[in-house]
């Protein structure tokens, strides 16, 4: 019996269920957008995490030797000391061709594996023999391959000796094999194994590791996940088992000199390794032996001699500075005596591919006999193309030798003494001229008192893996972090759903208001009966609380549904945004609850504010103060006319004066038109009527007298509808497109025509005559191509095509001089140290040791890397040192998206093993683009070239943004459709306000039908005015794009406009039906 507050609230809710239901539905939609967006973000990240986990299989940690190689048996040794599963693999990129039909895919991953790979991944009964290959399902599908098919696999030559290293043989940068497909691995069989942080499905080939290089080297060790070791501990273990042979180091004893010496398969030792070995073996002494192209004394010339730079400790006879010893053979050949000055030439070791020759003068200090330690052919490094050759003229030193200079006596010397150096100089001097990015010694010699075994023992377990280029990382964590910090689709969809959210807000405010308004008299009776303010507020808020909770709960389920649809769209029509079809819709408790909470707090706050304001108004004794608008209609008309005329003139001028109408001008025109039309509408409402009108059209007079008093009630809906439509149409039309300006030198293509990438680097500089000749590009029209060529360090794609947060994007090493000359590309941000008129010059600067500057696309910085200009990227340089790259600027969207650009000189210093160019921008005569493309793809076919026009490359990136724009348009359209439902509320509200007026009209003989018609007409006019204003001004703003482009989603835009009109009309008709005669009459009766 007792009337509790709970009962009061419930009874009220039941009574007002229709109104409450309306509110709950609006709240449900709001919640659905929140929850759905959060769930979409959650689903995307969860899918990324899942697929990262599946790709890694059982791998947890990764030891990488970067660009260098080691003996694969290291895995078994590591397993022996740790007891955990490990697997050495050789990871490289390449291309694959189906044997026979020429179908080919570039840029696939090739893994050289051992049995340990299967053990690690718990794959049983699989064995890959030398002729076998396994591929994954994705590749099988793409190339239509099945078991038993033969494939040709091409990749860059795997060798300890970088092919751009001095005197590396010129032949054989490319390796090709034919394999027979034995297995097609599923995901469970580690078929999708990948160390790359990227969501797209990989294309994998697995072959026997011994097939990929001459001595079956590896460059990665995969370590089982869930082991109890930290990365540091694993690294300690690795150090303890490292023997020189693992690192390609060899220790040999020289009978002739009594010395022991350490050699490396890379020929050159890094200075860091030299230092490391010197600290382990006291007395160890570096030697650098180099090829001298010519030794000349006053016109007498000796071609091609080896010269050794040695340290005082082992060769006390060798003087310092530019004094040298020469052997008697050389002395007699060129007639040199003690004290003579000789002129020596040699190739610059860092510019070997440009055949740059250096020259120096040296003074003969003494002449030695070819005996004892001066007769030491082992000083010549084991250049694969030189040592063991029958004759000097058969050398393959990786560069043109002038064989015509080689005389018979030279061949004789070679036959007798092999590579025995004819010149000896001090190590410090030799290092200055012959040390390079590749290293500073060709051998490390050890005095005879330390035996070979002692050296081997000393070097075992004592070399820091870092100093040999090893690095370890918890790749599993890295991948999960990259997924956790991937593109935030939650925020994205909440942003894209802005119009829906905004509409819900407006609708909710309207619904709450009309709910409160309709209960004004009851709330008044609560007052009169002596309910305290707090109590009334509590009662009202309790109702709202229940409505909100119900709406939010339903909204969570609607959100799950919303997510389901969005994910389906992302895998389908909106695939451009995610570049994959593997996103799975998942429902997480946390995002669902967060969506619930966010929507709940939003709606309850909104309701709270409205209720409080309403009660305050009631308290004031219902005295609403109306601000009388005091603007002169004439003035409004003048301004409106001014705006509209200015807009039209601007648009006409745009077309009349400029050949290519500017978007910015048309935008201004559209904006002016928009403002003008809204003002015109405003004017039409507030203008004073000529006295005549009353007799002419009394219906409209009724409306006008109301709206001229409350103009905001007519102008606001028009403003909202038109502004929303304006935004939706503009985003729909203005998709990113490659235009003339992006094709210009300052644009995103830098004025280049083609973008090409090769899987196998091209060693030669294609801008030189020799380089062009070497690749058959020295004839028309190929000779007219000029290249911007870049060395590439593989990394994780940081372009917008990758959803992950990337921390080590691929690097490009580019010689900035071409870019500087052409002033190519534009920057949206630059470090203040950079010279804005010559930004590329930054790539030549180094502000400190191991610090260089880099550039990346602004989009990459913002989304992929989440970095700002001035931030630093850290890389492991090849020799184990850290390389710091300061981001010096962000490029406006360019073809370089995904990469970080550095200066080639520095790049080669830190990554000398990257031997050649893999990324090319080709420029020339635009009309010959097609020919260029054909020529390049033919010439570099075996390099695994992938060519596209720079325009195509830009378009690929634009696809992502354009998909977002489409999503925005669709969701925006939905929001607008929701928004016009609000017109129904406006109608109800207007009716409530004017009830007395209508009742009076009824009393004076108006018919209810007529009153309804008046109300309906008003709102329809508002709807149409909004649609026309929005559409007209949006079309004006985007006219240049509409006119030119063919891919404008006209159908979608028209659909949206139609849907808005139809929904608006329907909502209005429903609202008008709810106004019945009795209601009006009861209002009348009360007067």
């Amino acid at each position, binding site marked *: *019996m*007792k*009337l*509790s*507050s709970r009962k*009061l609230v419930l*009874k*009220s809710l*039941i*009574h*007002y269920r229709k109104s409450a239901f309306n509110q709950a539905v609006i709240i449900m939609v709001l919640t659905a957008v929140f929850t759905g967006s959060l769930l979409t973000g959650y689903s995307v990240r969860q899918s990324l995490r899942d697929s990262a986990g599946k790709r890694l299989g059982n791998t947890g940690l990764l030891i990488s030797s970067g660009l260098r190689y080691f003996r694969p048996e290291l895995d078994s040794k590591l397993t022996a000391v740790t007891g955990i599963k490990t697997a050495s693999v050789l990871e490289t990129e390449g291309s694959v061709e189906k044997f026979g039909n020429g179908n080919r895919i570039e840029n696939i991953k090739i893994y050289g594996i051992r049995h340990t790979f299967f053990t690690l991944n718990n794959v049983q009964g699989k064995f890959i023999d030398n002729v076998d290959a396994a591929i994954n399902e994705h590749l099988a599908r793409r190339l239509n391959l099945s078991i038993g098919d033969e494939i040709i696999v091409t990749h860059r030559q795997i060798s300890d000796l970088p092919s751009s290293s001095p005197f590396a043989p010129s032949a054989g940068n490319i390796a090709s094999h034919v394999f027979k497909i034995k297995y097609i691995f599923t995901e469970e069989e580690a078929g999708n194994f990948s160390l790359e942080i990227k969501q797209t499905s990989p294309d994998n080939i697995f072959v026997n590791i011994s097939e990929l290089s001459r001595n079956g080297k590896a460059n990665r060790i995969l370590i089982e996940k869930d082991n109890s070791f930290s990365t540091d501990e694993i690294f300690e273990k690795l150090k303890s088992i490292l023997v020189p042979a693992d690192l390609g180091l060899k220790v040999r004893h020289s009978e002739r000199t009594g010395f022991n010496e350490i050699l490396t398969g890379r020929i050159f030792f890094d200075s860091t390794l030299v230092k490391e070995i010197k600290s382990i073996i006291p007395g160890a002494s570096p030697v650098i032996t180099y090829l001298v192209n010519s030794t000349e004394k006053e016109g007498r010339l000796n071609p091609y001699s080896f010269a050794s730079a040695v340290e005082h400790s082992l060769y006390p006879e060798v003087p310092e500075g530019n004094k040298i010893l020469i052997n008697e053979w050389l002395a007699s050949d060129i007639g040199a005596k003690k004290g003579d000055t000789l002129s020596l030439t040699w190739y610059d070791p860092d510019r070997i591919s440009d055949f740059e020759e250096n020259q120096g003068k040296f003074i003969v200090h003494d002449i030695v006999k070819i005996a004892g330690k001066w007769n030491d052919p082992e000083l010549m490094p084991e250049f694969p193309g030189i040592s063991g050759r029958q004759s000097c003229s058969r050398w393959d030193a990786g560069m043109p030798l002038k064989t015509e200079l080689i005389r018979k006596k030279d061949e004789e010397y070679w036959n007798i003494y092999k590579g025995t150096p004819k010149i000896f100089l001090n190590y410090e001097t030799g290092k200055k001229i012959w040390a390079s990015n590749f290293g500073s010694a060709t051998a490390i010699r050890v005095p005879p008192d330390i035996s070979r075994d002692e050296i081997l023992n000393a070097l075992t377990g004592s070399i820091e893996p870092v100093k040999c280029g090893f690095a370890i990382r918890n790749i599993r964590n890295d991948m999960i972090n990259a997924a956790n910090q991937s593109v935030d689709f939650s925020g994205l969809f909440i942003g894209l759903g802005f119009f829906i959210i905004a509409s819900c807000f407006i609708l909710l405010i309207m619904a709450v208001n009309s709910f409160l308004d309709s209960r004004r*008299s*009851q709330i*008044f*009776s609560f*007052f*009169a*009966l*002596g*309910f*305290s*303010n*707090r*109590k009334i507020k509590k009662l009202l808020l309790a109702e709202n609380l229940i409505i909100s909770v119900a709406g939010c709960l339903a909204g969570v389920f609607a959100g799950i549904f919303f997510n389901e649809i969005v994910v389906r769209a992302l895998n389908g029509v909106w695939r451009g945004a995610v570049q994959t079809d593997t996103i799975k819709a998942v429902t997480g408790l946390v995002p669902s609850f967060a969506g619930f909470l966010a929507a709940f707090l939003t709606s309850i706050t909104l309701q709270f504010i409205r209720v409080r304001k309403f009660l305050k108004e009631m*308290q004031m*004794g219902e*005295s609403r*103060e109306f601000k009388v608008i005091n603007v002169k209609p004439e003035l409004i008309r003048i301004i409106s006319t001014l705006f509209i005329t200015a807009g039209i003139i601007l648009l006409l001028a745009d077309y009349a004066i400029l050949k290519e109408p500017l978007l910015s001008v048309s935008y201004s025109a559209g904006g002016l038109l928009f403002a003008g039309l809204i003002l015109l509408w405003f004017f039409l409402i507030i203008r004073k009527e000529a006295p005549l009108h009353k007799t002419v059209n009394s219906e409209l007079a009724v409306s006008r007298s109301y709206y001229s008093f409350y103009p905001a009630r007519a102008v606001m809906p028009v403003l909202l509808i038109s502004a929303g439509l304006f935004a939706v149409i503009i985003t729909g039309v203005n998709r990113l497109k490659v235009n003339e300006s992006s094709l210009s030198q300052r644009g995103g293509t830098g004025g280049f025509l083609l973008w090409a990438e090769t899987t196998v680097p091209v060693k030669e500089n294609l801008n030189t005559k020799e380089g062009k000749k070497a690749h058959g590009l020295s004839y028309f029209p190929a000779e007219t191509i000029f290249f911007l060529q870049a060395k590439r360090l593989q990394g994780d794609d940081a372009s917008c095509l990758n959803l992950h947060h990337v921390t080590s994007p691929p690097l490009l090493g580019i010689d900035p001089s071409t870019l500087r000359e052409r002033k190519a590309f534009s920057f949206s941000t630059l470090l203040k140290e950079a010279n804005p008129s010559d930004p590329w010059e930054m790539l030549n600067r180094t502000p400190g040791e191991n610090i260089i500057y880099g550039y990346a696309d602004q989009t990459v910085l913002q989304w992929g890397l989440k970095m700002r200009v001035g931030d630093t990227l850290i890389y492991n340089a090849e020799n184990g040192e850290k390389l710091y790259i300061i981001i010096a600027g962000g490029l406006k969207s360019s073809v370089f998206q995904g990469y970080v650009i550095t200066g080639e000189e520095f790049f080669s210093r830190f990554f000398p093993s990257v031997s050649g160019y893999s990324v090319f921008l080709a420029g020339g005569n635009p009309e010959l683009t097609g020919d260029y493309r054909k020529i390049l793809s033919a010439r570099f076919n075996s390099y695994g070239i992938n060519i596209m026009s720079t325009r195509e490359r830009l378009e690929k990136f634009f696809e992502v943004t354009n998909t977002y724009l489409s999503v925005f348009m669709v969701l925006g359209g939905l929001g607008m459709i929701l928004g016009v439902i609000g017109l129904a509320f406006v109608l109800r509200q207007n009716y409530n306000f004017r009830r007395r007026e209508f009742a009076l009209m009824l009393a004076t003989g108006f018919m209810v039908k007529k009153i309804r018609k008046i109300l309906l007409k008003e709102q329809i006019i508002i709807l149409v005015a909004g649609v026309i204003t929005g559409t007209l001004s949006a079309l004006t703003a985007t006219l240049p794009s509409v006119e030119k482009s063919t891919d404008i989603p006209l159908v979608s835009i028209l659909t949206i406009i139609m849907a808005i009109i139809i929904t608006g009309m329907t909502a209005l008709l429903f609202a008008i039906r709810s106004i019945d005669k009795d209601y009006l009459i009861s209002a009348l*009766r*009360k007067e």
Partner: protein
Amino acid sequence: MLRVLELRKSYPQRGIVLNGLSLELKESETIAVTGPSGSGKTTLLNLVGLLDRPDSGEILFREKLVNNYTVDEAADYRNRQIGFIFQDHLLLPYLTVMENILLPLSARQLEDDEYRVKVGYARELMERTGIMNLSSKYPWQVSGGEAQRAALVRALINKPSLLLADEPTGSLDAANAEILGNLLKEISSQYGTAVILATHSMTLAKKMSIIYKIENGKLVKI
């Protein structure tokens, strides 16, 4: 019991409505306030019921200044001391007649015993006003006269010392107006409730002991 001194009230658009109005009301005294539409009858009642605040002047209830009460104090004052009826019955559509009548009890915490007493009192009054058989009906199921009588019972449920009736018969037919007028008078004398009745109807006004008219914002006895 009630003393109104020099009450002034004006509205921005209308200007001055009450201009130094004064009034004395003894316990159980019944008065009628008449005057043309817009003269300020409702304004006066609202001020006395603390639904609105005067610009200046004093309202003393049992020698206590009430017009400076806080919002909460005013609500409590209305709940305990004042009963309101309006032209519109203002019954909540979602509560039964009985529930509507007991609604004022929900405004504050009541002991169960006290509550039971009030329910008894409500029955008594309903009996008295002839709406006993309507107690479980909803407002829209009863006639205008019956609803207005229910509103009267609701106004009396807390045994107020002062009943403020603003045009209570305004939407009633003559017969029902007569019934309500008589009830007002009888109940007032039976329970000793003072009444201020604002009305256009002279017939109704005459049922009160004193009749005033608002003229130029002041009360004039007729």
